[in-house]
């Protein structure tokens, strides 16, 4: 066990995957000598060479599109998209190409690529650097989308994503890159299925469901609630496409009250799918409607006011009060 930041944990996971499989390559802007703008690929080019750690031209469709071609040649490319707001030029290669190559070819052509995408706000940056674009991707059949909430999880998920025969988007909560440290077992083999949610805190009165950067906010809220005499269960989805419905439903039935949190805007967000399924599947177990704590239905705001946009512990607590009042 070692103490690692989430950034270092991802670097370690990438490095280990590249050690285990010499067909794993990585491509992105500034990932070579600079080590990426967040330093996630720090030292990788020195260690694995410029053939496997490729600085790309500044073109996101180019990164993902050429990665698909390399995958068709037998490589396992890991793409780095520099920031959440810059992924959209690659949208066609992800939505029309990567997600459906297996389907349209009935298994003849596959797309075992990984797209690493730093996301989320409250980092004090300028426009297009604090976005949560997951809901543009989650309705797309054929894509896997995962997001870690701890360094240990990040270390495991990046390796599992690389091992997956499906295209996987790894949403990396960038404000946790350097701020969140935790124990990581570097010898632990990546095990289990990629789309498993995890109950990260047991509770009985209300279920708080989140993913990525929201999980630590939900855990903080659960601690406050405990001090106030309320028992909250916290579920970390880890995979938002597909979603581990068994774990979600089990917790919903157990507590009867569910709150879903994410930083992305409310309308048609991942929380909408959760609310719909939970009411459909757990209707008679529910004591309250499924409530949401989300980003606001506006473009991401300037950073001086972003703390009012990103769901806070206080907003979660107020929403829990509403749920408990039913």
């Amino acid at each position: 066990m070692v103490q690692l930041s989430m950034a270092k944990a991802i670097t370690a996971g990438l490095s280990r995957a590249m050690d285990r499989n010499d067909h794993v390559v990585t491509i992105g802007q500034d990932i070579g000598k600079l080590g990426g703008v967040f330093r996630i690929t720090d030292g990788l080019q020195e260690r694995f060479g410029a053939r496997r750690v490729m600085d790309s031209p500044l073109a996101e469709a180019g990164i993902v599109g050429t990665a698909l071609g390399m995958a068709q040649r037998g490589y396992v490319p890991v793409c780095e998209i520099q920031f959440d707001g810059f992924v959209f030029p690659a949208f066609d290669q992800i939505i029309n190409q990567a997600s459906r190559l297996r389907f349209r070819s009935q298994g003849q052509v596959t797309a075992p690529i990984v797209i690493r995408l730093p996301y989320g706000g409250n980092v004090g940056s300028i426009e297009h650097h604090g976005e949560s674009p997951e809901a543009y991707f989650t309705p797309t059949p054929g894509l896997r989308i995962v997001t870690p909430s701890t360094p240990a999880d990040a270390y495991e998920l990046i390796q599992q994503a690389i091992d997956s025969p499906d295209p996987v988007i790894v949403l990396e909560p960038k404000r946790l890159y350097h701020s969140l440290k935790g124990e990581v077992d570097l010898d632990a083999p990546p095990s289990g299925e990629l789309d498993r949610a995890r109950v990260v805190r047991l509770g009985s009165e209300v279920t708080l469901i989140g993913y990525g950067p929201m999980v630590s906010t939900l855990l903080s809220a659960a601690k406050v609630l405990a001090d106030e005499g309320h028992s909250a269960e916290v579920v970390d989805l880890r995979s938002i496409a597909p979603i581990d419905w068994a774990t979600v439903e089990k917790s919903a039935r157990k507590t009867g009250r569910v709150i879903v949190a994410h930083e992305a805007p409310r309308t048609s967000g991942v929380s909408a799918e959760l609310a719909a399924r939970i009411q459909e599947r757990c209707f008679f177990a529910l004591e309250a409607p499924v409530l949401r704590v989300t980003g606001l239905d506006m473009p991401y705001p300037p950073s001086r006011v972003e703390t009012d946009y990103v769901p806070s512990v206080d907003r979660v607590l107020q929403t829990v009060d509403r749920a408990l009042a039913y």
Partner: protein
Amino acid sequence: MTSTNAWTPRIVGDANEHPDDAAGGMPADGIETVQLLDAEGGEVRHPTYSPQLSADEVRDAYRTMFLARRIDVEGTNLQRQGQLALWAPAKGQEAAQIGAITALRPTDMVYPSYRELAMAMRRGLDPVAILQIMRGITHATWDVDALRFGLFAFVVGAQSLQATGYAMGVTLDGADEVVLVCLGDGATSEGHVSEALNFAAVFNAPVIFLVQNNQYAISVPTSAQFRGAPAARAAGFGMPGIRVDGNDLLAVHAVVAEAAARARAGGGPTLIEAMTYRIGAHTTADDPTRYRSREEEELWAGRDPLVRIERWLRDQGTPEEYFSDLSDEADELATDVRARVLTLIPDGITELYDYVLAEPSAALVEEREQVERYLASLEGR
């Protein structure tokens, strides 16, 4: 209307002149068009390129061109009879396609667009595999690795990046393969194609961009598509750009062979602009009479790539029997293909769940069961 002279390179300094030269079919933009056979099938001497195919090889190439055109007719007929949703004829582009594919090794990977019927047949693809796409049976399903022929691409230009990435993989492998990617004139306006050209140049990828400039992107003529010709744009990306008479089998073969040799030797990518003409409609849903003249169509009919090769082959002393046998073979193939297309029925929709993810998620398994139950409930009604 057509003459040997009309196909020779020209330099035009007047920017106000209409970019299309109706007499020659070549843009009057000063870029040389490589030609080895004129419209009458007469040999043209070129200072750099010379025919690389023997008479036997040309006969073999012509055979595929001829068979593809027959299947093309069958595709259009089947659509008109309600048996296909759509057909995108390759008619007129056979020399560009067969000239290019015969210049490659069977191990070289090809990324087609969606009009490469002749090229696909040359690689051994059963044309029924293409017709079934247009019948709504499958999206694009064949053994890409065995044929070394990629899936049809319907998002214009998107395949160019994948071809480039594949070629980057060839470099990583240290293999001496090359990759050919097919584009149209319209595709060159897509951002993905510009990104692909740039990546290919930066990574020195062994990829050949074959732009079949058939003069129209559906209804939009090249004069409204771009001002900088694709062949000229290549230099800006840092690669050779060559314009070739795309209705001249021998010339297309020669320039692609040269580009392939360069790529194999580590010389990187090449863009080839093959000047041709879509004799038919864009697809059976299109109506070319709305946007181009009969005179223009007749002009290009006189430059038909099949007629040109047929004349050359006759000049070489190919016996009449060869042509009549080929005609019989084409009729038999068309009859066989038609019969098989008419029997095609799709798998059930629930079987498609097998191909969403490598292993279906629990939610997919559950949804599939729901759909199966629903479909079963309808039986017997």
